[in-house]
């Protein structure tokens, strides 16, 4: 007998023994792994929904551009720990925007925005919407395209022409999809002519879809323009593009320094404005969604745990039922370890099979959900690998005790067992 051949057989043997054990009770084995199957498929399907939603949101943010940066009045956190509603403070001015455009490196399309919620009336339709006075640079800053008509021009801005460009949802609400170009629209106290409609950007918070855009100068006529103590024109926020994403930290520092000195803040005072980059927002959203996804996964993992307990239960029954087999094996010279490994592998084998079937079912239902349902799902390979290894781990964990019990049986008593 060749030695190497025997050692190969010694490795393979417990696997074939376990296979024999599992396949000798096919229906029972199938029922045993059902809990694992359901657990794994739930983990895969739920995680794929979470991942899909995350990917969707990030993709929408990407369409606004990761290089977008926004400056809003108010500090991130007030002294009382309550964040002031954005726009409720009036610390940013038109002159701030000009200064940023002139003095900060690596920025472009610095766009001042002055927004107010106004009532819009078009014929018999009316709605409340955010009306934003801005400059033509807004188009580049937010990567926008017009669906029909044009955005207003620098000429319109200089003259304060009373023209408006509608966000996609505003157009749908007021005109129900019919051609609005050339129509008159009442914004609060002034009447403007519609010259364009913007393409939809999807429902990201602060999406232009729900807004109306008019030249900043026209906005100053529509609503009473506030001025600061130093006589500068108050605006709601400033948006800009970063030319080099690598440098965004430095740009934030530069803007912060410039605005602090312009606002004459004491060294100990908090910023009276907040600089937010889309890059940061994207990572925040991504983190939040990951947490949500993990939570979904954790809930599904509970069913995996329940499945594991089921496996343990059946393994205990199986050990009891096969007491005589264990006795025979021991009489033939099986070590405690041989018996232990055989049952442990059998248990891991069951849960591995359950995991693999679960992956197929979970992946299948994720595909069905995105094909026939409203969800966008994304199955990631690392979750598949994780789910399968966790199910094997469950088999080893919950099989440990039954296998140990089997290995400890006294051969004489086990042989006497019926």
């Amino acid at each position, binding site marked *: 007998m060749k030695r190497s051949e025997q050692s190969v057989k010694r490795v393979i043997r417990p696997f074939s023994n376990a296979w024999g054990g599992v396949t000798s009770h096919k229906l029972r084995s199938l029922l045993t792994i059902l809990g694992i199957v359901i657990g794994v498929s739930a983990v895969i399907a739920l995680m794929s929904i979470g991942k899909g939603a995350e990917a969707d949101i990030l993709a929408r943010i990407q369409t606004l551009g990761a290089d977008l940066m926004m400056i809003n009045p108010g500090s991130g956190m007030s002294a009382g720990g309550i964040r002031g509603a954005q726009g409720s403070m009036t610390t940013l001015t038109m002159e701030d925007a000009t200064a940023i455009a002139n003095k900060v490196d690596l920025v472009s399309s610095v766009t001042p925005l002055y927004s107010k919620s106004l009532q819009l009336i078009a014929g018999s339709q009316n709605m409340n919407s955010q009306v934003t006075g801005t400059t033509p640079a807004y188009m580049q800053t937010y990567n926008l395209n017009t669906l029909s008509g044009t955005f207003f021009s620098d000429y319109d801005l200089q003259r304060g022409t009373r023209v408006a460009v509608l966000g996609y949802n505003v157009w749908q609400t007021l005109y129900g999809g019919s051609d609005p170009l050339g129509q008159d629209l009442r914004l609060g106290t002034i009447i403007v002519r519609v010259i364009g409609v913007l393409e939809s950007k999807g429902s990201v918070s602060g999406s232009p879809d729900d807004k109306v855009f008019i030249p900043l100068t026209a906005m100053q006529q529509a609503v009473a323009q506030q001025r600061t103590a130093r006589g500068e024109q108050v605006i709601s926020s400033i948006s800009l593009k970063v030319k080099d994403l690598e440098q965004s930290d430095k740009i934030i520092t530069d803007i912060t320094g410039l605005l602090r000195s312009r606002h004459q803040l004491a060294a100990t005072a908090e910023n009276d404005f907040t600089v937010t980059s889309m890059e940061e927002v994207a990572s925040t959203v991504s983190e939040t969604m990951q947490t949500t996804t993990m939570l979904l996964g954790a809930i599904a993992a509970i069913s995996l745990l329940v499945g594991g307990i089921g496996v343990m239960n059946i393994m205990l029954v199986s050990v009891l039922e096969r007491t005589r087999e264990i006795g025979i*094996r021991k009489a033939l*010279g099986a070590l405690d370890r041989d018996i232990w490994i055989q049952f442990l592998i059998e248990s891991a084998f069951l849960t591995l099979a359950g995991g693999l079937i679960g992956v197929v079912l979970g992946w299948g239902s994720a595909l069905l959900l995105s094909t026939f349902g409203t969800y966008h799902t994304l199955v990631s390979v690392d979750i598949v690998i994780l789910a399968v290894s966790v199910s094997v781990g469950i088999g080893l964990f919950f099989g440990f005790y039954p296998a140990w019990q089997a290995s400890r049986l006294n051969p004489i008593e086990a042989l006497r067992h019926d």
Partner: protein
Amino acid sequence: MIRLQDIVKTYPMGNRELQVLRGVSFTIEQGELVAIMGPSGSGKSTILNLLGCLDVPTSGKYYIDGQEVSQLSSNELAHIRAHKIGFVFQQFNLLPRLSALSNVILGLEYADSDDRKLAMDSLTTVGLADRAHHRPTELSGGEQQRVAIARALAKNPPLILADEPTGNLDSRSGEEIISILTSLHEEQKITLVMITHDARIAQHCQRIIYIKDGQVEKDEKV
């Protein structure tokens, strides 16, 4: 080959101790064919368990093949069972889901001499080569016991222990099993120890050890 020396075995029974063997000593030489006889409860099964290294004595010494085994751990005993002892049980003790051949291979596995040809040869010796792929349920009692003998024989152990090998068989199958065992003993010079309460079967052996009340009552050549 085998030497028992003042073997005592007690089992706890409630708060008392039940003394099953009370100083058993005998020697069995290589190539002997020995029957152990005695009424039920005499302790002969306990002797077989000790001889088979399934259990250890409470006191006394047991030498098998020159090795003292009464103090060994359960894994060391398993190693001796795997390599030095072949069992033939009254209940055959085959695994029902395995074929005759696989049952014989199972006996070889733990002796690390797992080999299909060896197993097949062993089945041929007991005249069951043509039934190798039948499961135990498809075999008669006599055939099942022949598979069990093949399993014990395949690894070529120095000692074969048979516990009432004909106890579950009709007399004709019983004769058959005994003739297989005795001819194996004659041809291959194996050491064979058989427990039986059937005097006719014991007559086929060279020597009979009578056990009564946990002691050797009589030890005589046939």
